[in-house]
């Protein structure tokens, strides 16, 4: 029996059916990881400017206390995940795409896990105007938990300026091994649906979809049960076939509404707002239970882990602590990946902390290296699987030639780096890696260009100012000369005489 029909779905181009490898981690219920001795909280756990610490070394903090506040237009606050003492604010190894270390606030936990007293409990959200609810969400430190970690409040504030039609809750966890959203939907369906209702209220919408992949029957039943209980006819459950990468934001919109997000645009351009189910549950926790984002559900799995499972873990717990909790590594553990096998990042130390973005810790026995790279034979397999309908072979061609204009016209910036082309390439060309490098290269060049342009403007402004000053000086001099000439030689003689007299008197 299927609780949700698969109906009027749009078609996704390309994609792959991958071996899921999820059953190992979903066999058990979510386990709660105890508070570790030390928490490491990076100040940049979101897209945008890093938050600024508002606590000092030696200060005692309580669980849920604000320790870094957003600085700049785009950002999210960071809260202490448990009570304890700040012992350091220093660079620490983290998992991120560029660079190895990032500034982190290190808390030595006192084990009491004492919660901060809230100054005042705000009234129920449905009695508040939508914009007040949005401001509340801003203070919860909530970011997109699907992996992009875009500050949720800013995403919502941008969305309310658009003409919205649907809220889409993303329960499509298409990447192999990762099962944290699946586990969350099974056990916290009530929170997810409650969060969806908060979002509908805040966005003044009356239509929302909860989209789940068809290979997650338990999650579908759990959500369907809660929906039947609350009987909110604004929310509809949809199931989609499990094809990687249907969980990508733009891909999901296309799958559910049959509308294509324009190149360089956002789902809001076609009237959709997509939120991950984990983010939705976090919004519920903050608005209803007044608990900021200080913990998340993370999958720890792979054949290098003794007991794969899903964990409810405090943000800032190090990977080493988490691995200890699940019984340590197996003898075969060789590679540590933060995130999934397709889009994750390999790290070289397990000192890295769990951050808001960490949806999976994957420990594998061997490097899934594909084989030696061979020349492109232009078979076109990559174009057939590309979910954004790009031509990876052409992009690769122009990336090798470093032809920026051509590679842009072939849509490099639309590449979502899903890695499908890598998998099907018979020549084992690391296409996604090459595209990522090309993107970084062009971003750097654009930065350089912007810097040069600013320098040019400042240089010109300075020259203009110096010219003006010079002209003012010249004008003043010629004015004095003119006055003197007009006064005639007698007046000049009189002035000189007066000066001489003054000197003589001295």
């Amino acid at each position: 029996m299927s609780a949700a029909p698969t109906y009027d779905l749009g078609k996704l181009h390309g994609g792959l059916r991958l071996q899921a490898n999820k059953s190992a981690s979903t066999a058990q219920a979510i386990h709660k990881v105890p508070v570790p001795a030390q928490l490491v909280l990076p100040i940049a756990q979101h897209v945008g400017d890093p938050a600024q610490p508002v606590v000092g070394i030696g200060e005692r903090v309580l669980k849920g206390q604000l320790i870094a506040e957003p600085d700049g237009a785009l950002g999210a606050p960071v809260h202490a995940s448990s009570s304890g003492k700040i012992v350091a604010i220093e660079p620490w190894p983290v998992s991120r795409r560029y660079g190895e270390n990032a500034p982190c606030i290190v808390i030595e936990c006192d084990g009491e896990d004492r919660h901060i007293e809230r100054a005042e409990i705000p009234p129920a959200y449905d009695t508040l105007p939508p914009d007040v609810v949005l401001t509340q969400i801003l203070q919860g430190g909530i970011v997109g938990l699907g992996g992009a970690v875009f500050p949720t409040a800013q995403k919502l504030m941008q969305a309310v300026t658009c003409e919205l039609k649907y809220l889409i809750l993303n329960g499509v966890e298409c990447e192999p091994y990762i099962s944290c959203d699946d586990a969350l939907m099974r056990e916290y369906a009530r929170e997810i649906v409650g969060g969806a209702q908060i979002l509908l209220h805040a966005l003044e919408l009356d239509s929302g979809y909860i989209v789940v992949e068809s290979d997650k029957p338990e999650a579908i039943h759990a959500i369907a049960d809660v929906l039947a209980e609350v009987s909110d006819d604004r929310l509809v459950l949809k199931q989609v076939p499990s094809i990687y990468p249907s969980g990508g934001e733009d891909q999901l919109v296309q799958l559910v509404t049959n509308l294509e997000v324009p190149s360089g645009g956002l789902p809001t351009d076609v009237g959709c707002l997509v939120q991950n189910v984990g983010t939705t549950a976090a919004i519920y926790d903050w608005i209803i239970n007044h608990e900021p984002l200080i913990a998340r559900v993370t999958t720890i799995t792979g054949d290098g882990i003794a007991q794969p499972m899903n964990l409810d873990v405090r943000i800032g717990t190090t990977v080493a602590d988490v691995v200890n909790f699940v019984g340590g590594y197996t003898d075969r553990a060789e590679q540590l990946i933060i995130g999934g096998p397709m889009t994750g990042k390999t790290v070289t130390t397990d000192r890295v902390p769990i951050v808001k973005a960490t949806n999976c810790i994957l420990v594998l026995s061997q490097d899934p290296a594909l084989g030696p790279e061979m020349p492109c034979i232009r078979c076109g397999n990559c174009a057939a699987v590309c979910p954004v309908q790009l031509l990876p072979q052409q992009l690769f061609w122009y990336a090798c030639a470093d032809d920026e204009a051509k590679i842009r016209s072939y849509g490099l910036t639309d590449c979502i780096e899903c890695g499908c082309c890598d998998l099907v390439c018979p020549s084992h060309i690391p296409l996604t890696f090459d595209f990522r490098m090309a993107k970084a290269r062009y971003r750097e060049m654009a930065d350089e260009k912007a810097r040069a342009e600013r320098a040019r403007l400042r240089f010109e402004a300075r020259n203009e100012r110096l010219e003006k000053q010079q002209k003012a000086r010249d004008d003043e001099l010629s004015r004095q000369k003119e006055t003197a000439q007009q006064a005639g030689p007698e007046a000049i003689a009189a002035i000189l005489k007066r000066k001489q007299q003054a000197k003589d008197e001295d």
Partner: protein
Amino acid sequence: MITAIVTIALIALLAGLALSYASRSLASESDGLIEQVNALLPQTQCAQCGYPGCRPYAAAIIEDDAPINLCPPGGDNTVRRLADLLGKNIVPLAEEATHGHIVAVIDESRCIGCTHCRTACPVDAIVGAHQLMHTIIKSECTGCELCVIRCPVDCISMQSAA
């Protein structure tokens, strides 16, 4: 006879008009070319090319046929782009290229507040009043090094911007 003279005269007149028009349109073209060359230069305004800024160097390249390999901050990439734009041959840099994005840093404990560096900065990236400590606005510094030689107490050094 008369027809021939008139025809030749007419052709001469037309050619003259066409030439004068061409000279005018070509003049504006070269002006545009200067801007295009200027856009390829790194705008450090360091004067290492021997001209008092990037725009004057761009003008010299177009008008006085100055070599295109005089810009150390731009490096080989700039030479390559200039050669592409102007249809010239790629030549090695006359001096060693500047590596990476560097900025000037003032050792503030040693600064005597003479304002010499401030007046030398081509992009107004130095702030500080007379006899008071100066500092550099890192985000605006182009790394031209013009302030370094002006400092009487040698308290300015160049560092990587990263």
